[in-house]
């Protein structure tokens, strides 16, 4: 397994210290880490879930827009940050693995390194409602 970039290594360290739920994705769009606060939101520990492609994330958590409309991985903020290399913000609805539907505000931004190296994306979550 190839070593992660030092930017991702330090981002994971930073995220692990925060109480705000945070996802970190690598350059190929795969989710490489979410922190303990995000584990509570999703209802699953990262160690149990492991690294996964963004497409699996949207399928497992049944992510929709706030009215229940279907969303493709490219429509969610992290998908935008990864494919279009720009920040994005959106309100989403998803079903946590411990049962409830949750509505969250998500902000995502791309991680851009030296020499225009695209290194991944970060997403930050604010829970607004649990159904």
């Amino acid at each position, binding site marked *: 397994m190839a*070593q992660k970039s*030092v930017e991702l*290594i*330090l981002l*994971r*360290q930073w995220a692990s210290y925060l109480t705000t739920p945070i996802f970190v994705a690598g350059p190929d769009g795969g989710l490489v880490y979410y922190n303990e606060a995000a584990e509570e939101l999703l209802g699953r520990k990262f160690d149990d879930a492991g690294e996964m492609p963004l497409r699996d994330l949207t399928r497992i958590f049944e992510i929709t827009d706030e009215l229940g409309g279907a969303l493709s991985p490219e429509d969610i903020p992290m998908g935008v940050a990864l494919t279009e290399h720009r920040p994005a913000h959106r309100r989403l609805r998803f079903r946590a693995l411990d049962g409830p539907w949750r509505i969250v505000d998500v902000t995502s931004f791309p991680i851009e*390194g*030296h*020499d225009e*190296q695209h290194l991944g994306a970060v997403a930050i979550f604010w829970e607004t409602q649990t159904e």
Partner: protein
Amino acid sequence: MKITMWGTRGSLADAGPQTVRYGGNTACVEVRGRDGSILVLDAGTGIRRLGGSLGTGWKRVDILLTHLHMDHIQGLGFFGPLYQAGAEVHIWGPPSPTEDLRSRLGRYMSPPLFPVLIRDLPCELTIHDAPRGSFRIGELEIAADLVCHPGPTVGFRIDEGGTSICYLPDHEPALGVHDFPQEPDWTSGYDLAVGCQLLIHDAQYSEEEYSAYQGWGHSSIEQAVAFATLAGVQKMVTFHHDPSHDDAALDQLVEGVRRNVQLPFSLIAGTEGAAFEIGE
């Protein structure tokens, strides 16, 4: 490759009777390729004597800077070849998002910190932002990558016909790893060091000292040894000795590790003047 240590001290030069065995000069290592290529890893105060040792007959010298902290560039203005008309000198260093390497080096190589401007140097000087990835100098294949240390800092791996050395003089690989040293894919510097014959690695602190300096970008000798074990190196040379560690303290650090840890490689205390040959 022949590797010679011209300065192994970190942070600040510390010359005196208390450091006479390990040396007091700051980071500088010479690497000579089979084809005669001359690399100088960092331009700490050790580079002055290296410059004096080169003599005549060489065609080109390449200085590879890991970062621009003073202990890695302070000797640059005292490197003889810079003052030789027609001498071909290349300087490579980490890129910055805002300024090129020439501009950043110019902050030191200009009054009031230094009397000689870069543009007034008589040698044929080329300054490069080191590309992240691989580049060649003669028959030597160089790989550079960012590593855990404050500010833009790179480490280098140098390969020559199947033999390799790795130079990580300022490095805190335990930072960012939840279960150090168990996760190679999440360990800074791993890809540079894996399987190399000789690793020159930061071992500034004792484990007890490290707890007060976590996040400063340096390692305890125990962490350095754990990193070298993870990377499967054949030899490790300790480097970036703390200026407060005299010869007796450095003996104690290395002997302590040899006594307490089953080492799968040869551990060598980095000593100014020491030389190593690797490969054919």
